């Protein structure tokens, strides 16, 4: 039977995302999130236009705490926080488009000529 409760093979099912204006608040958010609670930083994406998104996975409560801490960190770095989002139970179909820690992109995504 299909389930919509997310994948079972990932430790912690919740997904947390913070979009920042610029890389510095993005790194600051990633640092704060991983220090604040037991979450895994699964990647960061250069969205374009200077926007950066950092993504974490973990237990719902931990992701919630991590994203709040990350947002605070962005606030301390000028006007860094663009948006934050927490999905408590991503659908299993979403798993395929999420970066895994081993696949975290090293180069900007969608940058012409890169």
């Amino acid at each position, binding site marked *: 039977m299909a389930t919509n409760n997310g994948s079972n093979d990932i430790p912690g099912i919740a997904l947390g995302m913070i979009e920042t204006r610029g890389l510095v608040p993005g790194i600051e958010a990633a640092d704060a999130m991983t220090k604040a609670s037991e979450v895994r930083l699964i990647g960061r994406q250069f969205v374009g236009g200077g926007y950066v998104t950092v993504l974490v996975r973990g237990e719902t*409560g931990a992701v*919630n*705490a991590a994203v*709040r801490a990350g*947002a605070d960190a962005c*606030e301390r770095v000028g006007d860094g*926080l663009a948006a*934050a989002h*927490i999905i*408590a139970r991503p659908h299993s179909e979403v798993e395929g488009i999420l970066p895994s820690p081993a696949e975290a992109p090293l180069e900007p995504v969608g940058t012409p000529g890169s």
Partner: protein
Amino acid sequence: MTAEPRWPEGWTEVEKPSSLYRRFEFAAYPETRAFLDRLAGLSKETGLYPDLSFTRTHVNVTVHGTGGAAVDAEAQEFAARADALATVEAA
């Protein structure tokens, strides 16, 4: 005949996926942050974790039914209590 709404005032029901959502507006980030903290406390107490989307001055809360099921009384109660947490700030 007017049917009595099955969810707290200000919340919008979405059929697919079955959920309730509401946007809470705040004047500044510290107020937004305080609301998020209180909401996290409510989640810890009830075991119900909504999807959250926020910027500096607003929070979107999307409450799903327990275990991903349809919106139930538990979710409706969570929505009502979230309302109360937001009005604490306004008071």
